[in-house]
């Protein structure tokens, strides 16, 4: 009798176990999120909020927007430059437009292709970079020269002109071409050469800027390494500064800074994409302050930074400076030039 009872109890227990397992299995299948709409299910503590990084301590912001933004009128803007007289040149939509400080349009030069970069030399000549070659115009917009094509792989992204030298950053070939002012190639700078302790540039996206410093050294951004490198005109790497950090003192994201300019006091203005930040660093790379951050650049403030991600990746902002220390930021999203001046007493 007891044996039969025990057998019956065991059968009931097995039945209950099987029924429970079947019910749990059905619940597991029903609750399986096949479309991903329920998210990861992780708590708040696991969420990485980029919005927090976009918030910048107001005490660090040393600049303010001094005048209304200048509307370039372009659908797609690429680059800006400022000449010694304070006129602003903007490149975009197969044209170069020249604006007065007040924002009045002073002139327009139509181009055969989409310009990718430009600079204005001390003599007023405008150097315009296209994808594979460079053209030179006078201040009235007359084309003076067209230089040799640099190959199908070339993607020109920046030009710097000193007294006798012209430097062209080529993101496609990850190299800087060094010409004289007649367009004759002198040398190439930055190619990987471990004998000369040159690691080569890491350029994950078509942002590769350069400028000539007052100390006579060529400064080149190496966005993949999050730094700015200093080269002699002969191509020797002298030093570099900068490093990765999501903090305000470093360069964040995959590849920053995307653009930079050198102020009259030899400080650097750096511009980052993604988390859009324009900052000031001293000649040794030490953080000085902020010109403007995502809250100033992105409509709706920090909370919308993420939504600007893809756009910011596609069209990074450009920066230029004038002799009085004003900073010009080309907002490629809105197609406007925003002008920042240092706050008094900062």
């Amino acid at each position, binding site marked *: 009798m007891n044996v039969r009872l025990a057998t019956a109890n065991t*059968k009931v227990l*097995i039945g209950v*176990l*099987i029924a429970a*397992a*079947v019910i*749990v*299995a059905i619940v*597991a*299948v029903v*609750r*399986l*999120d*096949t*479309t991903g*709409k329920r998210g*990861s*299910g*992780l708590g708040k503590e*696991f*969420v*990485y909020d*980029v919005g927090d*990084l976009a918030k910048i301590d107001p005490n660090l912001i040393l600049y303010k927007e001094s005048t209304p933004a200048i509307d370039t009128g372009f659908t797609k803007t690429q680059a800006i430059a400022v000449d010694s007289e304070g006129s602003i040149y903007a490149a975009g939509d197969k044209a170069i437009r020249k604006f007065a400080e007040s924002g009045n349009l002073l002139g327009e030069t139509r181009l055969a292709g989409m310009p990718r970069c430009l600079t204005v030399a001390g003599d007023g000549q405008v150097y315009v970079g296209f994808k594979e070659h460079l053209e030179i115009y006078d201040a009235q917009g007359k084309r003076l020269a067209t230089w040799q094509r640099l190959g199908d792989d070339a993607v020109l992204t920046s030009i710097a002109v000193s007294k006798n030298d012209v430097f062209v950053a080529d993101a496609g070939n990850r190299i800087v071409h060094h010409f004289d002012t007649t367009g004759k190639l002198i040398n190439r700078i930055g190619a990987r050469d471990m004998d000369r302790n040159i690691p080569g540039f890491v350029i994950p996206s078509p942002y590769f800027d350069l400028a000539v410093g007052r100390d006579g050294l060529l400064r080149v951004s190496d966005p993949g390494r999050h730094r700015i490198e200093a080269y002699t005109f002969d191509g020797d790497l002298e030093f570099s500064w900068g490093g*990765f*950090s*999501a*903090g305000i003192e470093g360069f*964040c*994201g*995959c590849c920053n800074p995307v653009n930079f300019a050198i102020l009259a006091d030899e400080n650097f203005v750096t511009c980052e994409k*993604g*988390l859009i930040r324009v900052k000031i660093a001293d000649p040794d790379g030490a953080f000085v302050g902020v010109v403007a951050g995502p809250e100033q650049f992105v409509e709706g403030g920090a909370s919308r930074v993420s939504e600007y*991600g893809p756009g910011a990746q596609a069209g990074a902002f450009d920066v230029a400076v004038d002799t009085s220390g004003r900073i010009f930021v080309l907002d490629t999203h809105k197609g406007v030039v925003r002008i920042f001046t240092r706050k008094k007493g900062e």
Partner: protein
Amino acid sequence: MIRLVYIIIGTAFLLLSSGTASGFERFPPPDFESGYQQPTPANPAPRRNIYEYVDTAVLLAGLSLSSYLVLRTRSRRAILALCVFSLFYFGFWRKGCVCPIGAIQNIALSIFDRDYAVPITVMLFFLLPLVFTLFFGRTFCAAVCPLGAIQDLVVLRPISVPEWLEGGLRMFAYVYLAAAVLFAATGSAFVICRYDPFISFFHLSGNFHLLILGACFLLVGVFVGRPYCRFVCPYGVILRQLSRISKWKVAITPEECIKCRLCEDSCPFGAIRAPTADWPAHDYNKSKKRLAFLIILLPVLVFSSGWIGYALRPVTSRVHATVRLADRVYLEETGQAEETTDASSAFRGTGKDIQELYAEALDIQAGFGLGGWLAGGFVGLVLAGKLIAVSLRRRRTDYQADRAGCLACGRCFEYCPQEHAKRKLAKDN
């Protein structure tokens, strides 16, 4: 008892090592204050093509060996050893992919989508077990299938499932096969892979719900032998039919059956059929009438099931991402949903015409309508066939392994005194 401890330890190890691992794609990457140097991102190299052929060769060798062990050697121990090997090779080493069960979907998609090409190795994985089943019975299920192997190892206290319940539950496998082919053919989803209960174990990582599902199958499998193989496996449905007509078949006894009934309870899968008595005359007449009625009912069942499959197209088509997207966009456009989803935002970002999206979704839904007719009709046909089979009686004089249901595990060999006698004789000689 020792076996129970092993099973508990093994299951606990699998559960612990299969915990869910989730992560966010982070931009920008987090800072480290400890001086940690972030490594350079690197993608693992793709698996070399040669290994696909190695896998196929191992499958072929496994099938050959399994067939030899089942039909010639008749050694349960050797079959079990091969089972363990297959579990580790095809399961844990190859992580359960590619497998013949999932390959059904690749084949179905390749038939209906001309842009989709099936790799030769996937084709071989699908075909080889079928060919072997045609000749030797379900020797793939016996010791080569990793899903079968993992269940086979936990059969601890098998109980018998009543025949009516077994037959009813098995209908699910047919429905699952029809659904899997429908969703694969329409390019919607590979549901067999999506709901594979053991994939989390094989990957030692995965979705928490699938892990629970797999654990439930193993728990049920302790008492009901190989529940996935018997009641769910869509590939098993095909193998069942081929096994019915296989050239050689598993025999419980190597000699004449002496009807000792020792083997009767040896099969944990309910695949041993007892000898049948003569059919009483009144039962025979009743069954004849029932058979006639069911044959008349067959087209009705096929049609009604097909219609149900067709009528379910608004539900079934939602498995397709485009239909889901069109539904969502419609809700947003008509103000029934206020917030956008990632998918609807991405669609709007493309600038494509919404009407085109609706038209595409309707096209897909029409495909589900036709597919629903076919899938439903298939299920109706199977149901009618099963009802008809109940009205038929096969005459058996011996204890026999059911040709369709026998998984060729070899457990019954050990119970047969004729087997022991033969082995003793062989040993003495």
